[in-house]
């Protein structure tokens, strides 16, 4: 992946897997320049390992979110009266 692309010999070499994975979040957040993004896309087009990494990275984030938003916690919109009372008593001491 470090050799120049045969069809675009004048361009820079492909970014390496290390470069792609180090800047993956910037890629996903669309913070890369168009040129950098193009280079990333060229790499991903020929590197199934990095594509697998990208997909599993996204899945890891999605799973983390999904499991931490607990329905029991979501139901806890009402602050317990005991807590309200404890705060009230503590601040009026």
């Amino acid at each position, binding site marked *: 992946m470090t050799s120049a692309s045969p069809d675009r010999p004048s361009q820079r070499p492909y970014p390496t897997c290390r470069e792609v994975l180090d800047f993956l979040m910037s890629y996903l957040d669309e913070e890369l320049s168009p040129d950098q993004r193009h280079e990333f896309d060229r790499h991903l087009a020929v590197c199934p390992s*990095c*594509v697998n990494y990208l997909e599993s990275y*996204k899945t890891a984030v999605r799973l983390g979110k999904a499991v931490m938003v607990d329905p029991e916690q979501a139901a806890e919109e009402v602050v317990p009266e005991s*807590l309200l009372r404890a705060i009230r008593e503590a601040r009026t001491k």
Partner: protein
Amino acid sequence: MDHSAAPTADLLSPAHPAHPSSEDALAGIVERVRAGDHAAFDELVKIAGGRIIAVCRRMLGQDEDVMDVVQDTFLSAFKSISNFDGRSQFTTWLYKIAVNACLMRIRTRRRRRERSIDDFLPTFLDDGHQVDPTRPWKPCEAFGIERSDIRAFVRARIDELPEQYRIVLMLRDIEELSTEETAEALGMTVSGVKTRLHRARQALRGLMDPFFRSEEFPA
């Protein structure tokens, strides 16, 4: 290899965004408290308390003293409310206090053994290739994230993250604070938060990888 679609637009959109109306209501209550109407503080706790309880539970896990930390958070807020200058949203300011209260609590816990974050990050050859090519994961739809064993498994992997990485992951990906808000809450730079978040996500991926690889995932 459909990697061209904008990947995070849906993935990272807020699942529980801040409620502008709540923020407006809080701003009014904060002004009343600052003006001496201390009883109004009860209303403030009722409106903001649920989210603060949730963030403390998530940051502290099964810690039995979660409610004590929530109480400490609001007492600190009450005592220092005159310092709230309104430049940030009140909930952001309150989050910072809650995060600090949680961090103080975490520091007093018996320190658990933590592995280095490097243990969970990808490794590379000298030429920049991955040492071990990444294999695809079984699709989420195939196992269902509603399964209690899957949820417990993922939670346990999050708990395994080194604390400073877990906290950033919690604030950015779970609590959905912005990078700037997270940086403010933790006293970090924006670029520092981005770097730490990326490593935390990579580490979480690495921790889950052996179990979610297609051929190894338990039925």
